[in-house]
């Protein structure tokens, strides 16, 4: 019988710790498949963040390096500079990348470090129990914004892809989502592009992936996908924000 679906060789065969319906797992799968398809798995060194994906190093079937909260881009810089022929990526949540690690992500783009960042935006702090993130939507409830986020005192949600697209060193910035099979296919294409940019030595590439957190949103997994589509995409439009040769 023909095999129609199997676990990617890019992932280790272990049980997941992610909540049921959490799309972190889908995003792991896409990154792993891309690394295998580009035939670079054995050359890859990944950097895991702090957040729900802190255990990413248990899942990817390549060398991995755990980083302090927000510092993955700096750690990746150290790795890539001494191992320029390896493929280096960071996998970071929105708390990690858009809050405590804002300086590190801006500067890794600024130096056009030849690495790839997978930025998982679920608009909330998952691991620590649903506190507000810089990316939390206006009106969205969080344990530290119990009546819902307001602009006053909390600011507008930070659009990292748009912001990083203004950094001269950023080579490839795209925002995708994983709320539907079609969206997932597009997400994989963007992730593959991003790694291809690195392989071609073009500099910093980042894919922002809109993701769900059913547990802390307090919405079941299926409705979470709908909530993402209806609430996140209007504020975080999908698409490419930067490709090389294009001065914005």
């Amino acid at each position, binding site marked *: 019988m023909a095999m129609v679906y199997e676990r990617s060789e890019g992932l280790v065969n272990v049980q997941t710790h992610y909540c049921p319906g959490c799309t972190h797992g889908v995003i792991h799968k896409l990154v792993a498949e891309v690394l295998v398809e580009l035939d670079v798995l*054995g050359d890859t060194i990944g950097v895991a963040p702090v957040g729900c994906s802190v255990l990413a190093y248990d899942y990817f079937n390549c060398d991995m390096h*755990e980083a302090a909260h927000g510092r993955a881009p700096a750690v990746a810089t150290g*790795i890539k*500079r*001494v191992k320029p022929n390896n493929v280096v990526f960071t996998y970071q949540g929105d708390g990690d990348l858009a809050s405590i690690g804002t300086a590190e992500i801006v500067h890794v783009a600024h130096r056009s470090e030849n690495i790839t960042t997978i930025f998982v935006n679920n608009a909330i702090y998952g691991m620590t129990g649903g506190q507000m993130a810089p990316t939390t939507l206006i009106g969205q409830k969080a344990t530290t914004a119990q009546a819902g986020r307001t602009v006053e005192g909390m600011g507008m949600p930070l659009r990292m892809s748009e912001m990083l697209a203004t950094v001269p060193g950023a080579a490839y910035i795209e925002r995708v989502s994983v709320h539907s099979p079609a969206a997932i296919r597009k997400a994989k294409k963007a992730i593959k592009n991003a790694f291809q940019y690195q392989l071609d030595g073009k500099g910093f590439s980042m894919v922002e992936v809109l993701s769900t957190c059913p547990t802390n949103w307090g919405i079941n997994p299926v409705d979470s996908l709908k909530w993402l589509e209806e609430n996140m995409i209007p504020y975080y439009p999908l698409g490419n924000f930067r490709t090389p040769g294009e001065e914005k």
Partner: protein
Amino acid sequence: MSKVLMKGNEAISEAAIRAGCKAFFGYPITPQNEIPEYMSREMPKNGGVFVQAESEVAAINMVYGAAGCGVRTMTSSSSPGIALKQEGISYIAGAELPCVIVNIVRGGPGLGGIQPAQSDYNQSTRGGGNGDYKLLVYAPGNLQEMVDLVQESFDKADYYRNPVMVVGDGMIGQMMEPIEFRPAPKMDLPAQPWATTGTKGERKPNIINSLFLKPEQLEDHNIRLTAKYATMKENEQRFETFNMEKAEVVCVAYGTTSRIVKNAIVALKEEGIEVGLIRPITLWPFPQKAFAEYPETAKSILCVEMSMGQMIDDIRIVNEGRLPVDFYGRSGGMIPTPEAIEEKLRSMVGGAK
């Protein structure tokens, strides 16, 4: 081999390159700027990497990444910058990676000043990072010792898979002395099968990590680390003694202050006052062995530091209440004069003889 006249900070940089340092990550702060400047120029020529990071936080995390790949890596900074690096230092110690960290100390707290000080004793030996960890900490007293120790630090770091810190004060970083670059004694170094270099599909993934979610595992990790630190404590204590035979007062001083104390000791000897010196070369492990026995003449101990008195606690611990411990210190970038130290010592022995 011939001697060269070099400024402290440049000598440190050259020593690191000769020791095979292949990656330097830094951020400017006075009085250690000559180190990143020298490295930016010389590292690429020597097949190495230099990055001026966006902050000390980023610099130490770059060190963390490069060290994970098994590459000899260094960073340098001065007091407030080292404070920022403590997060990364804790991670590096936790993940058991080798690296060398140079701290050219200036006065604090806070932004403090830019003049030499020794007020980072606690920051160096106790650390500001979280958790149970220790660094091997060297405090050279002259530039020759500085370059020798910097070279040796890379071997020690690799041997123990632990960060090594070299502490100089602004004085040592800025002054010039003739030095000779001699090959450091080579240790028998372990292979690095743990390094992240890509699996090439030939081995299981390597993971550089300090996260242990199961408390039993984290406790085991800490027990293992503590055993490593105990070995370091036994094998790495280093110190120099001076004029101890008939000493009435035993001075304890390291780095720049130890040089000034030596001058005071020589001057007092002419007055018939015998003062000895214990000079810690390792601040951690603190050289307990130097305090095992005092000369019969010894009546008291004087801790001399360019701080408000940070090393005094360690002296009290190893002294175990045997002799009274007194303190003389200057702070804020003030350097003690030999005359002032002599005066203090005279008062301790009841005046000139």
